[in-house]
């Protein structure tokens, strides 16, 4: 692996919604093979960062740049970002009645292949791939014939996100509070799924409020987001420190330096 292999590069990213400034100059570099955890108190801008990266239209980017393998990500539509390899695992996956999980994934996989200049997948190959990837997160087969997330439990919805991630094989996955609302068994399943997908070629941004998830998905770097800025970075031990001491000491440090 080449040390300078920057996959994602965020420079001085500022974003707002309805005139309210949420991100106030984020700088972050993520290389292939790395896992970055982003932690921070409520309202720090964690979910805004994931939404801006995934291309949600509600946010206005006022300054800064984001590149993925050198390409300007901010200039792309949400679907192009996905086809370039960005994947957002939603904090609250939405239910879409009438769209079956299978049909949805077939469309998504084949749209990505089309973008890459490949033929659509044969139906039998697709079903084989689905079966294989479902085992990753121990997804029940019956769930794929149902409408997307409709009537799924909280844990099933999050597992479905990781299952989709496994199917689409993204370069960069952003897990937005994937641990929220999960019991310990579901958390273990989801984390194991992610760990199996980790490789030297892909990278992860794990957004979480709690250290608990990071016991399972061990990060290379931990960043603390506060008031729309990364105010502290460290290794996995920083997460442990936050678990013990909370966020107040960081807030105090930031206020003192301003």
């Amino acid at each position, binding site marked *: 692996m080449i040390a300078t292999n920057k996959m994602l590069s965020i420079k001085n990213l500022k974003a707002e919604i309805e005139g309210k400034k949420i991100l106030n100059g984020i700088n972050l570099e993520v290389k292939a093979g790395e896992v970055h955890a982003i932690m921070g108190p409520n309202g720090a801008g964690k979910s805004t960062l994931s939404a801006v990266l995934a291309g949600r239209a509600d946010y206005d980017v006022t300054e800064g740049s984001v590149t993925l393998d050198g390409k300007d990500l901010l200039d792309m539509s949400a679907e192009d970002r996905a086809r370039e390899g960005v994947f957002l695992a939603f904090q609250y996956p939405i239910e879409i009645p009438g*769209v079956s999980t299978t049909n949805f994934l077939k469309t998504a996989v084949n749209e990505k292949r089309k973008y890459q200049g490949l033929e659509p997948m044969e139906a039998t190959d697709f079903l084989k791939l689905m079966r294989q990837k479902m085992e990753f997160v121990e997804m029940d087969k019956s769930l794929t014939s149902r409408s997307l997330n409709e009537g799924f439990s909280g844990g099933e919805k999050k597992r479905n996100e990781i299952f989709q991630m496994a199917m689409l094989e993204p370069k960069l996955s952003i897990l937005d509070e994937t641990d929220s609302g999960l019991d310990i068994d579901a958390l273990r399943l989801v984390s194991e799924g992610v760990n199996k997908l980790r490789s030297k070629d892909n990278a992860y941004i794990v957004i979480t409020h709690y250290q608990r998830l990071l016991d399972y998905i061990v990060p290379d770097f931990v960043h603390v987001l506060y008031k729309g800025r990364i105010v502290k970075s460290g290794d996995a031990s920083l997460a442990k420190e936050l678990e013990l001491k909370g966020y107040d000491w960081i807030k105090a440090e930031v206020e003192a330096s301003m």
Partner: protein
Amino acid sequence: MKLEENIKTEFHQYKNQAEENAFFQMREKAFAEFDKNGFPTIKNEEWKYTNLKSIFDKNFKSTCVSSANVKNLLVDSVFNSIKANKLVFVNGSFNPELSNIIEKDNAIVISNLAKARKENTNVFDAHFGKYAKIENESLNAMNMALMSDGAFVYVPSNKKVENPIIIMNVVDSTDINVLSQPRNLIVIEKNAEACIVESYISAGTNASFINVVNEIYVDENAHLEHYKIQQQTGESYQNNYTQIFQEANTNINQVTLTLDGTMVRNNLHFYMNGKNCDTLLYGLYITEGSNHVDNHTRVDHAMPNCHSNELYKGIMKDKSTAVFNGKIMVHLDAQKTNAYQRNQNILLDPEATINTKPQLEIFADDVKCTHGATVGQLDEEPMFYLRSRGIPEDVARKMLLNAFADDIAEKIKIPELVGLLEQLIEEKL
């Protein structure tokens, strides 16, 4: 008012050669009612958003002539491959050659009204003209006065009709502007079961006006699946009145799909005359161009412990317009009623219009009722979810619109027909 004159002329011609019997007296009474009130105008609250003027100024005439196109049209229809009993009516006249009854049990009558009036006199006399009122319903009166023929279905107690019954109405305007007035009578006795489909298609390039009346009687513990599939093309006008009369413990699933037609007005009425009825009514209308669809539904909860659930969905394109007017009437005695009603609309173009009016009138005090209507574009959240997985906007939009529409089509319990209808819907969207 050409049509009114034509109706009067036709009735006088009929009167001159009619036999003086009870049937004739019913028709004469109906004609008098029509003559008194004339056609409804937009001053009538029930017709506020549906202006029939363009129909009444046209020179529509009844005819029993049918062209050679009809046979091909039937072969091309979604019903061609469906295993079912088929009754074909062309311009309101029964066509035995194109019809096909496959039901084996001879006690079940699947026939036409003109024949049933002579051969099934007891059932006919007990039910004909008993449910669809003519007072202040000019179009019903006009149908009663001059109706041609129609389907007659009689399912005796404890019998189950094994195959669906498809009533195929073809309006053929190859030669002239056609007026067609079929009338269907369906009687399902105690513990009996049937699945009945009404289909409407057109042939020919002149204008057509079909004025249909359905009377449906469902006796205790019976189960009825009833579907209406409207696909008339060309300059086609349809007024479709359906009165379903339910006795205790009956179970009805009704689906109305309006996929085409210049102007379609549906009047769908349920009257629950006994306890523990369960009624589901679903509708889907997809409009385009300058087409107009009006669904007026009314559910009368007259007795206690009944349940009704209504969901109507619309997708409107171009300059098309639609009307939804759903009334739930909970009578004084109808305690423990559960009645729900929703109307959801997606407007795809800035000039498309929907007038929606969910109505509840409750006279009992121990009931659970809800109603509501939504009008809008496709939701942003599901759109973003699909796009965030790499699905382009136009594909995502189609997926969501299809899902919205298929939700209603899937209430039809003939799987092979649902598949074909969903394909049709996909092509339309």
